[in-house]
């Protein structure tokens, strides 16, 4: 049930420090989009109200019935999914879920996906003042129809464009969720930061496939799917490390997190909060174990707050921490002009 005594470490994180509508979480543990339904599915397995926040399934402009089956297959220490964004569409979604969340004591983040900049902006506008919605997460791992299906998240200009239009459409805290398929994920992160993203989250799934050797054809009806789970953790951690060392907004890390030790790796790489997807399928209690375990780990090592370990393993983060503020610069000028 977590610690309640006075010396419990401070686990509170602010994921939108630049935004007046703020996104303050009581702890840094967030179920990931597509892995937690709309929050109710896990009610029989975990205490949803104890979470830092949760992210909804990806919502699209129109309702979608998703891809044909099979949509999922297991891989070594991971899984592939090609759900195909089965969801009721933005309007059906708004009618159905936020009213339920309104009475919940946990911030609900809505994940949105679209194939055009205009559709992204339209959804953001519709969500802007919906009670029960705490923030949006913009999934830029989507094909951009006007760019011939090229993924938004693989191109800095397109990522910036989406971010800018969504920013103009809503004052809600905005998290931009990055794609690991980008050639240089740092470039994308910096582009969306410049356009007003309050935070970035990463990574979305890697593209993979499996072949059924009996039937001699791809296992997934969609041919390819997204790889997630512990298998991808080293790739995710590397990208979080890179991005956290290159932007000034909060970074939400995810990809294969299954244990307290995994979560700590992401914090030390520079993540302010974490998301958990695949691991919670196998063991929903992992979500509670993470909250309790991170708190216990911090307490056992005498950390008064989670913030104390964020970025400690990140060289560039350390450099940034040491970066002098404007007033200090004046006195240090000689050192810099040598």
């Amino acid at each position, binding site marked *: 049930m977590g610690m309640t005594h006075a010396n419990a470490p401070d686990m509170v994180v602010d994921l939108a420090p630049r935004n007046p509508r703020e996104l303050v979480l*009581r702890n840094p543990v967030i179920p990931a989009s597509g892995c937690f339904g709309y929050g109710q599915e896990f009610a029989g397995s975990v205490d949803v109200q104890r979470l830092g926040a949760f992210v909804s399934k990806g919502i699209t402009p129109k309702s979608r019935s998703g891809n044909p089956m099979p949509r999922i297959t297991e891989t070594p220490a991971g899984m592939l999914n090609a759900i195909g964004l089965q969801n009721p569409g933005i309007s059906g979604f708004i009618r159905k879920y936020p009213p339920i969340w309104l009475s919940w004591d946990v911030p609900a983040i809505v994940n949105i996906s679209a194939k055009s900049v205009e559709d992204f902006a339209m959804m953001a506008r519709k969500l802007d003042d919906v009670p029960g919605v705490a923030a949006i997460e913009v999934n830029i791992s989507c094909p951009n129809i006007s760019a011939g299906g090229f993924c938004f998240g693989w191109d800095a200009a397109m990522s910036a464009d989406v971010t800018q239009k969504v920013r103009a459409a809503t004052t809600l805290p905005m998290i931009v969720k990055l794609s690991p398929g980008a050639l240089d994920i740092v470039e994308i992160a910096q582009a969306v930061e410049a356009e007003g993203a309050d935070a970035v989250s990463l990574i979305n799934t890697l593209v993979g496939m499996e072949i059924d050797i009996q039937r001699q054809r791809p296992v997934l009806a969609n041919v390819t799917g997204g790889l997630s789970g512990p298998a991808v953790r080293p790739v995710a951690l590397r990208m979080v490390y890179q991005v956290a060392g290159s932007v000034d907004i909060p970074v939400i890390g995810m990809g294969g997190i299954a244990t307290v030790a995994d979560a700590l790796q992401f914090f030390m790489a520079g993540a302010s909060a974490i998301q958990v997807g695949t691991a919670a*399928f196998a063991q929903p209690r992992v979500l509670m174990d993470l909250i309790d375990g991170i708190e216990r780990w911090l307490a056992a090592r005498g950390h008064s707050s989670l913030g104390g370990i964020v970025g400690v393993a990140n060289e560039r983060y350390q450099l940034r921490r040491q970066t002098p503020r404007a007033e200090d610069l004046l006195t240090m000028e000689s050192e810099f002009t040598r």
Partner: protein
Amino acid sequence: MDVMAKTESTFSTREFMGEIIRIEPVMGDAILTTFTAPKKAVAEARPGQFVQILSREPTAYDPLLRRPYSVYRADQKAQTLTVLVRAYGRGSAWLMRQQEGVSLDVMGPLGAPFTVRPKTERLLTVAGGVGAAPLRMLAEAAIRDGKQVTYLMGANDADGLLPARELPDEVEYVVATMDGSAGHTGFVTDIIPAYLQWADQVFSCGPEPMFRTLRAVIHQHRMGDRPDVQMAVERAMPCGIGACLGCVVETRRGMRTACVEGPVFEMDEMLWG
């Protein structure tokens, strides 16, 4: 929002550790694995529901996802659940290697059970392979409720059939084997027509091809909507609680999760592609 506000919420987890207390061979290379379970889990388990069993070492990430097994028996007195496990792939191979005394990481019971209508007096169950498991529990419950049950089962040979001792004495047990080593020689679906007019409801669990033949036979023989037919389908189930949408079944009312809205579906509700 005061983020440190004390949260008042009650929830009960469906995850538990169950100690294996008995392993018995049952049919073919399948075994019955019996493990301890919380009172609530045993009391609430209904025929057609399943448990998700983590099928890896505590020290390994692989195979990652749980495997679904139908509840075969819920023993209120012993406070145990039993599942029937056949060697198939990586997960079931692991489970079959576990010995008595091992603690299993289990989640459940999950899913929507078979629905026996109050007016139903005569149940026909049609089992193929490990589909025998949920139907055994259904047969037991129906007999307990004073109903009549005819249990049909098909297999390649006599060794692949659920032993008669596993079913209540009151059940009429009729079998078919491909090699003729027991009962009718041929498919179980060959012998169904003889029971269709008798039955109020049909319940089936087995491989996809059996379902398709069963459906064709029933469409050919049934009168109006009678008997009505429920099928427990098989899908890989990453989460088992409706969160991932990886186990869906296409129905007349749209995509439905096999783990929460199923695994039992009305035959006529499903779209057969």
